[in-house]
């Protein structure tokens, strides 16, 4: 349990910490430290296992179908990173306590910082690649929020956006890479992936997977050419830079390379991609760092360069290089975090970070100056400090690379050159800031030492620099061994941690770098002049321009497609369906399958002929809306007959009653609308539409024909076999509706209810005045409710209700059921509205249709929930036979209650819709009131 706890605690802390913001900065800093302290205590008992090369695994299933599990793994490598995250995190919390001003939103800051810490711990402790991916993306998001913490600064917002775009984009690539790897291995669990290294490397997709994973790692760890986001992220508050951009976030990519080292490394592709990227990054970062006047800009570029160094070491592919890489991860985190903190102190105390103005601070803050100078020396690689040790290993490894011919000189040369640059910019950091004359109009003058406790984190880190530098084997030896062993999959090469390895070539390279760098710094003006000749590319401007160009392209594209014309949308929709379907349809042709055609009979053929004719006539005569409507009703009736002809009595009955309601509805709507559609489209356009329509029709014909003549197997055997014994009814269609697929039906009547309520809501406040006549010069008749119709309609109602009750009750066994009975009742009621008017009918129907809809849904749901009471799943039905005198023995199924719900919903929804439309015209309401009175 302890590993998930370590990861989740910071998130809990993020929820709790802001509550302490009221208590001031000290209170919240203490509260924010708690998760890390508990985590350290939780990790401590595992140390012995890990030191022996063991692994601690805690796994819980999450979504096993996706291969995603909530599993965590602790080994030497993840322990090293977890310790960096936790320990430096603690120092950052203390440092931020003094860095932030009391009026700033401290609660938000600490909450975000803890979220970030949790995500970071998640990355290093996840044992499932998908789980790691989730935390990976979380770090991108939280770092975005942290970088843009000062939301009022435009630069901060832009820098944050750039960081998010680059690392987020890389995250997508990484996800794709991980999915490929998971696919190759068959599992996303780290154990399986690490064990399947040979299988992955032999796979044909290995280069793709490797490239994608490395894209993720390179963007996150600011490798060339994605390094540009890191310097711009320096707009973040300094504690954020010190934490994210020295020890944690940018190390996530490095961690990924180390983690997947056994699975992916050791091939040519790995060697060339990783080592050359690392080399380019190392050199470019170090070179640019020299020319930055911004203190944090210098550190950011130096970070880029050191990340390149670590990447290069991993790229070399030898085991010793991997050890050196892990070692440098530790050393860089320590000295760079302390340097960022020192830079923050200077910024805090002088009000600027411009090295052209900050000079001679030695006189004002000797204590801070001493600390910063030690850390900067470590960055330069001065002996007796930790930076020297790993750099020495790096120089040694660069000599071991067996590149062909003259290329063998390249790595040591690049290494030495980068070393020279590093010494030069470190010298600048020391000399330009603390010496070199007097400060030039500082915003805060005179600067003085920061609060005592603000220096403690720096002191601790600088002390670590010296400890590691002087007693490497004693201080980090065991941890480094455990981490390297985990990285290399257990095979650790012979290596020796010592201050001095004798007078050899690497030592000479160190000296060359040291003196070369000092020389370079002393001649810096020449280099500055040289550098000033090149126009510097402002990555932010380029980035912003690219973003806005893409955005405007997208806007233009969207505007082109989405121009507000429904006609165009509908056209595009149909055309794109055709475009997708056209090739397969062409291949299909007029295809008649194995079953062949069945013989025709004349009555059916005539019916189908009428249907086709009326359908085409509806389209052809659509301008005359009334005619179109009459033709449409014929089509509907033919469809109903077609259902009856082809063995679907339930459908025929449903279609028949729906047809009546639909036509009444459309008639009602037509009452308010113009009765004539004007010609608006050009002839070409109409011809084009006809072509589209014919193509669609032809496509459907071909598909239908092909389908109908194919033999098929259906799952319906089950329904047919179980309808009677399982559902207690012989009408299989109805049993499917109320029993087998009852849940579907419940959803469907819910849709019905929502549509009806939507109609009611849309028309509630709307009034429409109907035109005075039918548009052809005829006025409406004055006899609104013809006597004959009224006289016939009234006795129809009880008869129709009786029929519907009969249809409803027999529905389980014979054609009928809730849907059909509901529609029949609705038609009967609508007839009353038509014959006698709104007011008259409304007076005699004493309930609101809203309630009816609700009641119907309630019944259906109760019928479903009721089965829980008997210990059955939702919507389980039961049935029994009872006998009544006269009626005799009959069957009662609990599904009847459900069907009653369907019945009520259908009546309510249908009438609610029609009555809402009928009520639209104030004119007719008044008139009907008069009539009714």
């Amino acid at each position, binding site marked *: 349990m302890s590993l998930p706890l370590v990861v989740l605690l910071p998130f809990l802390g993020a929820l709790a910490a802001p509550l302490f913001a009221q208590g001031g900065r000290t209170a919240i800093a203490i509260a924010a430290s708690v998760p890390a302290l508990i985590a350290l205590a939780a990790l401590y008992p595992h140390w012995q296992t890990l030191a022996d090369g063991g692994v601690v695994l805690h796994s819980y299933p999450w979504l096993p179908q996706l291969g995603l599990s909530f599993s965590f793994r602790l080994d030497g490598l993840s322990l090293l990173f977890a310790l960096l995250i936790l320990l430096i995190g603690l120092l950052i919390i203390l440092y931020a306590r003094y860095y932030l001003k009391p009026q700033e939103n401290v609660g938000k800051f600490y909450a975000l910082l803890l979220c970030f810490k949790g995500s970071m711990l998640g990355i290093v402790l996840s044992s499932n690649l998908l789980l790691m991916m989730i935390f990976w993306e979380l770090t991108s998001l939280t770092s975005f929020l942290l970088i843009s913490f000062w939301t009022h600064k435009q630069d901060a917002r832009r820098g944050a956006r750039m960081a998010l775009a680059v690392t987020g984009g890389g995250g997508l690539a990484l996800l794709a890479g991980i999915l490929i790897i998971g696919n190759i291995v068959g599992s996303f669990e780290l154990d399986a992936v690490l064990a399947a290294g040979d299988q992955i490397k032999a796979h044909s997709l290995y280069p793709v997977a490797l490239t994608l994973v490395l894209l993720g790692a390179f963007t996150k760890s600011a490798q060339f050419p994605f390094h540009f986001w890191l310097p711009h992220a320096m707009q973040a508050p300094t504690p954020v830079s010190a934490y994210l951009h020295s020890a944690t976030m940018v190390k996530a990519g490095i961690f990924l390379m180390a983690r997947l080292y056994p699975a992916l490394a050791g091939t040519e592709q790995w060697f060339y991609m990783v080592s050359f990227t690392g080399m380019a990054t190392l050199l470019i970062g170090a070179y640019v760092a020299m020319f930055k006047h911004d203190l944090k800009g210098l550190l950011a570029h130096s970070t880029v360069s050191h990340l390149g160094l670590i990447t290069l070491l991993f790229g070399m592919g030898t085991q010793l290089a991997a050890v050196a890489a892990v070692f440098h991860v530790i050393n860089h985190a320590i000295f760079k975090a302390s340097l960022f903190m020192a830079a923050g102190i200077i910024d805090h105390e002088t009000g600027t970070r411009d090295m052209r103005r900050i000079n001679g601070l030695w006189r004002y803050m000797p204590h801070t100056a001493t600390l910063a100078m030690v850390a900067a020396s470590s960055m330069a690689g001065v002996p007796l400090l930790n930076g020297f040790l790993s750099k020495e290993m790096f120089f040694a490894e660069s000599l071991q690379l067996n590149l062909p011919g003259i290329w063998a000189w390249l790595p040591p040369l690049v290494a030495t050159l980068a070393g020279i640059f590093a010494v030069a910019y470190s010298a600048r950091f020391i000399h330009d800031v603390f010496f070199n004359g007097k400060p030039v109009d500082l915003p805060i003058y005179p600067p003085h030492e920061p609060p005592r406790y603000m220096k403690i984190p720096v002191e601790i880190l600088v002390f670590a620099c010296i400890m590691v530098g002087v007693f490497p084997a004693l201080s980090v030896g065991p941890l480094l061994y455990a981490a390297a062993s985990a990285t290399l999959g257990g095979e650790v090469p012979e290596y020796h941690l010592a201050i001095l390895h004798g007078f050899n070539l690497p030592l000479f390279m160190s000296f060359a770098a040291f003196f070369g760098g000092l020389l370079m710094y002393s001649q810096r003006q020449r280099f500055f002049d040289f550098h000033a000749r090149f126009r510097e590319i402002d990555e932010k401007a380029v980035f912003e321009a690219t973003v806005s160009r893409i955005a405007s392209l997208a806007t233009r594209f969207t505007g082109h497609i989405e121009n507000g014309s429904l*006609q165009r949308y509908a056209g595009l929709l149909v055309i794109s369906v055709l475009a997708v379907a056209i090739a397969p349809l062409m291949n299909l042709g007029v295809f008649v399958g194995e079953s062949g055609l069945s013989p025709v009979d004349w009555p059916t053929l005539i019916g189908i002929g009428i249907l086709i004719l009326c359908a085409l006539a509806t389209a052809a005569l659509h301008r005359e809306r009334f005619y179109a409507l009459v033709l449409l009703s014929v089509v509907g009736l033919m469809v109903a007959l077609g259902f009856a002809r082809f063995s679907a009595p339930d459908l025929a009955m449903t*279609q028949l009653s729906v047809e009546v309601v639909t036509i009444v509805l459309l008639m009602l709507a037509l009452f308010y609308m113009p009765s004539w559609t004007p010609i608006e489209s050009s002839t070409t356009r109409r011809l084009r539409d006809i072509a589209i329509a014919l193509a669609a029709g032809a496509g459907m014909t071909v598909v239908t024909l092909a389908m*109908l003549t194919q033999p098929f197997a259906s799952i319906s055997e089950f329904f047919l076999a179980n309808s009677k014994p399982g559902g207690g009814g012989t009408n299989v269609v109805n049993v499917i509706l109320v029993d087998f697929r009852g849940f579907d039906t419940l959803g469907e009547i819910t849709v019905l209810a929502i549509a009806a309520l939507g109609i009611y809501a849309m028309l509630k406040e709307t009034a429409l005045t109907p035109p005075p006549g039918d548009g052809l010069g005829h006025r409406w008749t004055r006899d609104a409710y013809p006597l004959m119709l009224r006289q016939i309609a009234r006795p129809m109602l009880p008869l129709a209700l009786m029929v519907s009750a009969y249809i409803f009750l027999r529905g389980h066994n014979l054609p009928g059921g809730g849907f059909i009975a509901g529609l029949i009742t609705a038609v009967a009621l609508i007839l009353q509205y038509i014959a006698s008017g709104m007011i008259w009918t409304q007076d005699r129907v004493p309930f609101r249709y809203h309630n009816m809809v609700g009641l119907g849904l309630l019944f259906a749901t109760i019928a479903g929930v009721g089965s829980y009471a008997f210990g059955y799943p939702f919507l389980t039905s039961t049935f029994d036979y009872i006998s009544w005198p006269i009626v005799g023995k009959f069957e009662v199924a609990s599904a009847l209650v459900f069907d009653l719900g369907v019945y009520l919903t259908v009546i309510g929804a249908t009438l609610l819709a029609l009555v809402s439309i009928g009520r639209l015209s104030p004119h007719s309401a008044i008139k009907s009131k008069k009539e009714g009175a």
Partner: protein
Amino acid sequence: MELAFALAIGALTASGVYLLLRARTFPVVVGLTLLSYGVNLFLFSSGRLVSGGQPIIGSTAAYSDPLPQALVLTAIVIGFAMTAFVVVLALRNLADNDDDHVDGRQSGTDSKLDSAEEVTGK
């Protein structure tokens, strides 16, 4: 028989699609109705064309496939609900814009005041 049935579906689809592409609301509603007839018939026919095989247990020797029938039954009812909804949408459009064009008021006559009224629903 299958060919005639397929042609019927094709005719329904063609008429429906043509009306769907018209500029006024009423033809579009009619077109949608035709299209839904076509779709319902198509779905229904996935159980193949069977004569005299109503799926009532005990009424006949061989049964037609009841599953597409059950699906189409609810589709008919929901199709009606959707038609009603679209009709009402058209009526509301008519009430708000004094015009039954599918795109709402023509862009030429649009003004800021009117669109503000539209938002508040008049």
